[in-house]
């Protein structure tokens, strides 16, 4: 459970988040909104890269914002980046192990859990290959594996399917749907591919100009007039 209240972020004259309040309960939740609405900024606040001007975030009854940024991963917060950031000079295994060894998890079962995550995203065959030699699709999967290894509590996915063709998006969607059962984490998915969002997320929240304009069951949200006007555009989705 994560509860965001009155979150405001300003960059100079730009207000990227403007009193954002929302509550994500469990499972996989969608977060959508027009370009520049503040979705990535919201993720950056959660991971500690951006310090909000105002507001609070409580996650599983802890004050997330008072935590040092690198501690949040230890606490169980994981994310992927809009521009993929897998570490090229390390193997897939080391990429994932890296996250594991900086979490609170013991080392006893490290190898097993790391391989488990790699298996989960379907990269077992290339587990010892350097990431630098992999293609875009696989790199995104490496990021997903890093996000689910061990026992994450909160997984943030920032446009993981951008630039992936339909078939691979479908594969990715399947993975995202299985994250809650794999690791019991609360997952927040940002993407502009509505078919991916509606197939993965039972609930969705919509951000516009830094404010929440709608939230609830995905199907309802996507029919919301305001959302259609601000984000989806007139004709799409029926």
């Amino acid at each position, binding site marked *: 459970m994560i509860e965001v209240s009155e979150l405001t972020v300003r960059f100079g004259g730009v207000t990227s988040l403007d009193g954002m309040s929302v509550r994500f309960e469990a499972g996989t939740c969608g977060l959508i909104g027009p370009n520049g609405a503040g979705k990535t900024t919201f993720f950056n606040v959660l991971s*500690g*890269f951006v310090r909000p001007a105002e507001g609070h975030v409580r996650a599983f009854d802890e004050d997330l914002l008072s935590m040092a940024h690198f501690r*949040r991963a230890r606490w169980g917060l994981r994310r992927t980046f809009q521009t993929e950031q897998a570490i*090229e000079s390390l193997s897939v295994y080391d990429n994932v192990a*890296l996250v594991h060894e900086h979490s609170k998890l013991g080392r006893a079962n490290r190898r097993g859990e790391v391989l488990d995550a790699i298996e989960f995203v379907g990269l077992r065959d290339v587990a010892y290959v350097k990431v630098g030699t992999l293609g875009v699709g696989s790199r995104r999967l490496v990021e997903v594996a890093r996000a689910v290894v061990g026992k994450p509590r909160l997984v943030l996915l920032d446009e993981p399917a951008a630039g992936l063709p339909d078939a691979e998006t479908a594969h990715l969607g399947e993975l995202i749907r299985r994250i809650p059962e794999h690791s019991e984490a609360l997952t927040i998915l940002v993407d502009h591919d509505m078919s991916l969002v509606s197939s993965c997320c039972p609930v969705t929240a919509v951000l516009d100009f830094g404010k929440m304009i709608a939230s609830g069951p995905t199907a309802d949200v996507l029919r919301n007039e305001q959302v259609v006007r601000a984000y989806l555009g007139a004709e799409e989705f029926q």
Partner: protein
Amino acid sequence: MSTAELQSATPLATPPSAPRRVERADLVRTMVIAVLLVFVLIGLPQMLSVYYIDSMTQVAIYSVVALGLGVLVGRVGLISLGQAAVLAIGAWVAARLLFATSLPYEVVLLASGVITMVLGTLVGLPALRMRGLYLALITLMLAGAITVALASLNFPNGGHGFSGYNGTFVHIPSLRRPGIATTDPAYFRYSVIVAALMFLLVLAHVRTRPGRAWAAIRQSEPAALAAGINTTLYKLWAFALASFITGVAGGVLAGAVRYLYSIDFQTQDSITLLAVVLMGGAYSIWGAIVAGLLLQLLPAILNNAGVSPDWLIILFGIGVLQVLTTAPRGIVDQLPRDISRLGRRLGGLTRRSAASHGEAP
């Protein structure tokens, strides 16, 4: 680096059993290194003239310095143009302690390592806020400042006071060496052992948790933070490690040269140091040894051949340009590929000839 690395990567068809193989290769590699080390320790001093033994001692010392810079540049992505100044600090501390105390040499080495580590980390502390070009330039500035300060302060020569320098000496005493290594071959062995220990120390870092953390930091700090890495800590750690081993190298250097002068630690040396580290290969442990050879053995050979040292500088300049434009991973990356190609060809030959021998009745 990203493009270069991609380009150098051949399309892989790595079999799933890779890890097992890697372990066997590791074992072989360890054995090879052990044999090499034994040869260097026992065989080499017998074969070389004193002239080359001394320059090999320097190679051992400067390999460690290059290794430290290699950790910063190659592993963490922090360019430092001030490592010669750090070496100078290490040597200064060691010299001061050697004159002032009668501590065992090993203790002096450790102390100069630790004190240099503290100072180096202090330098690293503000530098942590910046990276890339700014870090390179600020370290260049700091190195320049340290050079000027050392020129005014002077290296200890057995005098009293904080600086341990007495300008009026018409007789400058030499620095002592460890009791077990007073002769040149013995001191060479001593240096190699210390260097080997420093290499092991770095290896122990690179192969494990800090190594992976550094790789993450090098590529993208936000990604590293998101992976739970305390980037400040690990960057300081890298500075501390590099300064420590450079400080120890400074201590070994003090005993090797026995007289220290600030002219031997110029701002320019930091630049040539970076040049050879890049030429050798900042990403690899072996690169450090190549850098040491380039920096100390090559000049000795050229000097002995009567070639002007100016050529060496020109050579380093060309080397830097060559490496940066065509082989960003340094000589150690290129050479083995050439050698392994050669080896494969030779291997093919011997196998063929062995086969033909076997066939002979």
